[in-house]
């Protein structure tokens, strides 16, 4: 290729040829081999997640098919379906599973119902200033300790607590400790986790679309139903994953405010701790795993997993 003398000199002055360093050579190799790049990116995180998490999980779940030596209390490699059969047929496990799923579903419904209006207000009505303030207001409770919040509800719901004090003049009383208290407390705990993805989803809905809908004669309600809801549905599902999954595994809240009620987490906890039966605990924990996998698979098509 022939080049004009002056331009080549100019080019040389403007962009020096890169020095041939090791970093430069590595960079060239990497940019030519995208698969190598991918491999390097994935090696560390995949090794971590597989070694620390998947292997740990698999070695736990496999014990579901083993037994506990009744004399020594040690886990023995003795293949059996006994634990699985116990869990699948035991009426205790049916009742607790239904109760746990019921609580998780109720918590999720309450949270979505509370989150939708506040997220809509934050994203579409509030001024930028208020938006910032409201985001902080929603985020801040996340920093208050989980345990302290549960404890706060315990003191609010207790016999001489705030709720009784407010309700007394009306002749009502606090629901006390039990499943309603558990639902209230869990809904309270996970609410910010539901608000944030829905808010982010609403932020992505362009205002122009809402205006176009209005221009074409749609009332607010029908704009919300036909334009907004379909667009933020993945975000709503993403929020529901948080509240549903977190409720499904909880055992501390129900211990503190749930009275004598047990959830799946409590059964697992008892079997790991006092009962010292790791195989049975592993078998019980297959229940929430199956439910959560089912839920994640069912919602995967909505694209919710990209909205977490």
């Amino acid at each position, binding site marked *: 290729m022939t080049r004009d003398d002056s331009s080549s000199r100019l080019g040389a002055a403007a962009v020096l040829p890169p020095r041939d360093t090791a970093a430069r050579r590595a960079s060239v190799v990497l940019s030519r081999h995208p698969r190598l790049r991918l491999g390097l990116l994935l090696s560390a995180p995949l090794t971590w997640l597989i070694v620390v998490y998947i292997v740990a999980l698999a070695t736990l779940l496999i014990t579901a098919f083993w037994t506990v030596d009744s004399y020594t209390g040690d886990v023995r490699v003795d293949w059996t379906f006994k634990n699985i059969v116990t869990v699948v047929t035991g009426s205790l496990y049916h009742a607790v599973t239904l109760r746990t799923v019921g609580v998780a579903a109720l918590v999720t419904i309450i949270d979505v119902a509370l989150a939708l209006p506040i997220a809509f207000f934050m994203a579409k009505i509030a001024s930028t200033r208020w938006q910032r303030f409201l985001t902080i207001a929603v985020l801040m409770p996340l920093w208050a300790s989980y345990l302290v919040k549960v404890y706060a509800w315990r003191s609010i719901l207790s016999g001489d607590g705030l709720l009784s004090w407010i309700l007394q003049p009306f002749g009502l009383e606090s629901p006390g400790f039990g499943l309603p208290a558990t639902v209230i407390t869990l809904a309270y705990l996970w609410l910010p986790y539901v608000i944030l993805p829905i808010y982010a989803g609403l932020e992505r809905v362009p205002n122009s679309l809402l205006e176009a809908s209005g221009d074409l004669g749609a009332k607010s309600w029908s704009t919300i139903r036909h334009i907004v809801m379909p667009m933020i549905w993945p975000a709503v599902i993403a929020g529901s994953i948080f509240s549903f999954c977190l409720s499904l*595994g909880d055992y501390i809240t129900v211990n503190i405010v749930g009275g004598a009620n047990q959830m799946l987490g409590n059964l697992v906890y008892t079997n790991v701790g006092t009962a010292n039966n790791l195989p049975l605990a592993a078998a019980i924990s297959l229940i929430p795993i199956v439910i959560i996998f089912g839920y994640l698979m069912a919602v995967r098509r909505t694209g919710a997993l990209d909205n977490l």
Partner: protein
Amino acid sequence: MRLTKSARAILGIATTLVLVIVYVPLLVVLINSFNSSRTMSWPPRSLTLEWWGKAFRSAGALEAVGTSVYVGLIATVVALILGTLISFALQRFKFFGRDAISLLVILPIALPGILTGIALNNFFRTILGVPLSIWTIVIAHATFCVVVVFNNVIARLRRLGTSLEEASSDLGAGMWTTFRLVTFPQLRSALFAGGLLAFALSFDEIIVTTFTAGQGVTTLPIFILDNMFRPTQAPIVTVIAVVMIIVSIVPIWVAQRVSGGEKTLR
């Protein structure tokens, strides 16, 4: 959006109500930190500063805060590195097993904490034969913190596109230079937000921590759980909770400023 006045009013009232519900328990905690009754009966008969004084002199509480900060910081750094790597891989490449990996990242937080807890406990003690210590907590926390960093970074990468990076390499920058001068500055606020969430998640985690903490290692949630039902210690726990909420305003506010500043630039 054009909304009728009444619709705006209803939404405004709903928002206010939700915020009231969110803040009443926190206010109760605040007031109870001055409640002279150890059982925190309502309404408080008299107020006292005794618990505040005691909390700041409680060696156990201060040590627990220190441990939690230490664990949280290291877990966050690990999560930042792993989460960023994985989000680059999933956003910039199409390959077989991509969906499986994104599910793998979510699992540690989606599956019940107690399960992660006993799985790791079993893994460390029985399989590896490693005694539980502060490091087993860090490993456990980093594992479930990856997902929040991943979510923040991948959302940012999706928005960024690759044109600026291509321009940079067309101009002769190597990969490291491009990352340092072009990609990283654009990711900074997402990394900050993700790191903040990861830290918050680790700082407040109790279930996995219970199962992975070594003898004598007390993080703040463990301290709280141990002392919450002790009449002599419960008021101190309340004070710590209030301090945490107040201190948390600073990082959240900074995160808001960082991301808010970007919005006006775009």
